[in-house]
């Protein structure tokens, strides 16, 4: 992250604008917040970090009136306040930009920003709000047409619309929940420019993110939460990554890059892709060897997921060939890919990877049900035995195999999907952002699992936006940019800088 933004100066001396003291919250037996604490100083960018389930979101929902705290108080501008609903908080100048964008795709940017504020007249026109919106966009140097339907904007631009919407309420405190999750590098730089601009205007921001480099770039202070509890607040300039991560997980984690690969050049090629082309993918060719982890690096929109979806048959291929174990495949739909032994683990687990309302065991055998039936009936014992084997083998943490998958943590859900594909005899596994939205501890479990799979002779394509992850896991790294593979690096030759160079190379 080299966006040329300098860190905070002097803001930590500013007066306290908001204090959340002894906030306690329970949900049906789950103790989500335990006497938690947060202090904001005027005009600072305050990062809020913690593993998933640390209570960051709950804390923010209490602050914005979505939840009511069971105990504790909020002191805002020196006065005790109580927000009964989001509107109360909004009126008081506390606005939130949610991780899942809350926009109305069929309405224009201006209509989105001023929804609910059309005035008391029954009739509405867009003239006035278009002018107002244009002025706001100009203030932040955003090139967005106020009359464009939001659904036609890129995710980055949609985010900007959300931020402008929050600002337009004259927000004093702006909460940004994982704002960069779906943004490209250049969009992140743009976002940070906007944030710094807001800061200069005296807006206080709470910045929730998993991305440490961004936190170190943009924040003034960092509050760390763990298991619903306040851990500590650090001044960004005076701390380092190890200290933050240590406070988050209570232990030091080092991410060490792989130094070399054990895969000999003579290892058999399992998957051979030649000249794969579609609307978003141009002439992509590569080989995948037995037991290899091939990392796919690139920026958002580089065509990595699109490539994976072509191989898996989820999108139509315009031209190009795919060979598996030397045999040419005709992949028209996912079912063809699965038959050929290719499994795909989507980045969006809930939408594409899992049947969330089914149990662990049901999900495990879902892709291979025909092998678990006898005379048309499901063989429960076989299902149970297989499932239990995998629960043990890849260490799925679940109270029982009949537990509903929605109740598992992200990391364990991921493992169930892996089990599903192994049960189905897939020997080529495509992991698309396998650790997105997974906390640090579960991440290393997933890494271990992938290493284990590779050692067993499975071949893995791993798409990741985290360079550290790419460097740690891959035997080779395919760098993509704008739908093309710009370079395939051996791990010995790869570094963050080199990968970045190829990932931004325009051919």
């Amino acid at each position, binding site marked *: 992250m080299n966006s040329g933004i300098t860190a905070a100066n002097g803001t930590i001396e500013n007066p306290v604008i908001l204090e959340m003291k002894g906030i306690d919250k329970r949900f049906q037996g789950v103790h989500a917040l335990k006497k938690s604490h947060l202090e904001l100083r005027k005009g600072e960018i305050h990062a809020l970090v913690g593993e998933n389930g640390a209570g960051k979101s709950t804390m923010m929902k209490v602050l914005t009136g979505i939840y009511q705290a069971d105990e504790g108080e909020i002191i805002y501008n020196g006065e005790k306040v109580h927000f009964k609903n989001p509107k109360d908080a909004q009126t008081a100048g506390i606005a939130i930009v949610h991780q899942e964008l809350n926009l109305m795709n*069929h309405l224009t940017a201006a209509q989105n920003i001023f929804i609910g504020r059309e005035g008391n007249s029954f009739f509405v026109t867009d003239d006035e709000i278009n002018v107002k919106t244009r002025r706001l966009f100009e203030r932040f140097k955003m090139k967005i047409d106020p009359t464009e339907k939001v659904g036609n904007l890129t995710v980055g631009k949609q985010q900007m619309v959300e931020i402008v919407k929050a600002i337009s309420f004259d927000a004093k405190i702006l909460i940004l929940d994982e704002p960069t999750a779906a943004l490209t590098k250049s969009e992140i730089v743009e976002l940070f420019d906007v944030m710094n601009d807001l800061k200069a205007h005296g807006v206080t921001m709470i910045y929730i993110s998993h991305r440490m480099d961004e936190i170190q770039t943009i924040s003034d202070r960092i509050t760390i939460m763990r298991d619903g509890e306040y851990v500590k607040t650090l001044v960004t300039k005076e701390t380092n990554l190890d200290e933050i991560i240590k406070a988050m997980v209570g232990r030091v984690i080092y991410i060490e890059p792989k130094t070399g690969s054990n895969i000999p050049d003579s290892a058999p090629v399992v998957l051979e892709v030649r000249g794969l082309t579609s609307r978003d993918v141009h002439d992509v060719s590569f080989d995948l060897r037995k037991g290899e982890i091939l990392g796919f690096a690139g920026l958002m929109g580089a065509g990595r997921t699109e490539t994976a979806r072509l191989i898996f048959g989820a999108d139509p291929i315009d031209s190009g060939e795919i060979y598996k174990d030397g045999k040419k495949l005709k992949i028209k739909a996912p079912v063809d890919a699965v038959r050929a032994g290719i499994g795909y683990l989507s980045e969006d687990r809930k939408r594409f990877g899992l049947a969330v309302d089914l149990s662990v065991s049901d999900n495990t055998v879902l892709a291979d049900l025909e092998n678990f039936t006898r005379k048309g009936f499901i063989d429960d014992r076989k299902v149970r035995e297989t499932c239990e084997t995998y629960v043990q083998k890849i260490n799925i943490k679940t109270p029982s195999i009949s537990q509903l998958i929605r109740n598992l943590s992200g990391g364990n859900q991921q493992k169930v999907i892996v089990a599903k594909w192994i049960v189905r005899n897939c020997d080529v596994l495509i992991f698309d952002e396998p650790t997105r939205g997974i906390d640090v501890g579960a991440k290393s479990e997933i890494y271990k699992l992938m290493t284990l799979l590779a050692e067993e002779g499975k071949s893995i394509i791993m798409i990741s936006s985290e360079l550290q992850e790419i460097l740690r896991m891959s035997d080779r790294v395919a760098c993509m940019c704008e739908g093309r593979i710009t370079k395939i690096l051996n791990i010995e030759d790869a570094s963050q800088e080199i990968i970045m160079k190829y990932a931004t190379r325009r051919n």
Partner: protein
Amino acid sequence: MENLKRKFDLQQILAPAALVILYIFFCLFGKNFFSTGTLVSILDSTYYVGFMAFGITFIIITGGIDLSIGTNMMMSALIGGYLYTKGVNIWLVLGIVVLLATIVGWINGIFVAKLKLPPFIATLGTMMMTQGFGAIMTKVQTQRFPSGFDVDGLYKQIFYKTGDGFPSGIIYMLVFFVVAWVLLTKTRFGRYAYAIGSNEESVRLSGVNVSFWKIAVYTVCGFFCGLAAIVYAATYTTIIPGTGNGLEMNAIAAVIIGGTSMSGGIGTMSGTLIGAFLMSVLKTGLMSMGLQGHFQTFFTGLVVILAVLLDIYRTKKANAVRKD
């Protein structure tokens, strides 16, 4: 982006184009189709479907549905007819008809917005309830509104046809088309309808009283059912208890043919108007070709499928462009 806009415009003229083509087709191949008489009968059969379709357009744009519109219209007309035979003034009767239908709409709104019933279930319930209630109130007797020759027949001349055969109903319908169009495009009511259909949670988080506006949407739909009941009574004079069931599907079909998306957020009132006409042309046209009732039903179904396929195709295209 320019490309997308052009495609979108093309889609917008598709329904009107289909209407014109269909009309020309029947003029060429239908028996005596090209005549003022046919045109008038096309208008006649558009009225009540049109009014219901205007009303339900609002609801479908919010992402909801109302299955009770047909039976609501019939029930209101039935009770109106009953009151008329009991000697209530015809103009007062018409007022009560609209009021009754509006109340049913409001009840639907309460069920959906306050009690959080899924619209399909809530209005399935009120569909059956209104059908039953109309029959109970009238003791399952067929009700008659005054005919054109009656002293009270003036209403027929206003809402249906003048003495010399001018289809005054079209004026009545177009006036309320404009009302519906203004409501949808120029008011907060319409803005929130689109917004709720786009992303209800987002609207709620923006501090808009979503349940109030949703109730308003269902109530307005009920009001339009009341207007439909008037024109139905004016057109057919005789109201039979226990009917109305299935008419909602004609209205919903018109809305869908007009390009309103069942998933909410997208739709126009002009599309609905054209959809309603298209269905009448189809109905009258098939009749002129000697194809009766069941053919109409069959072809209407076919057109609905085609319209929805088109909608899916259009959404797919729009999404494909958006990804860039």
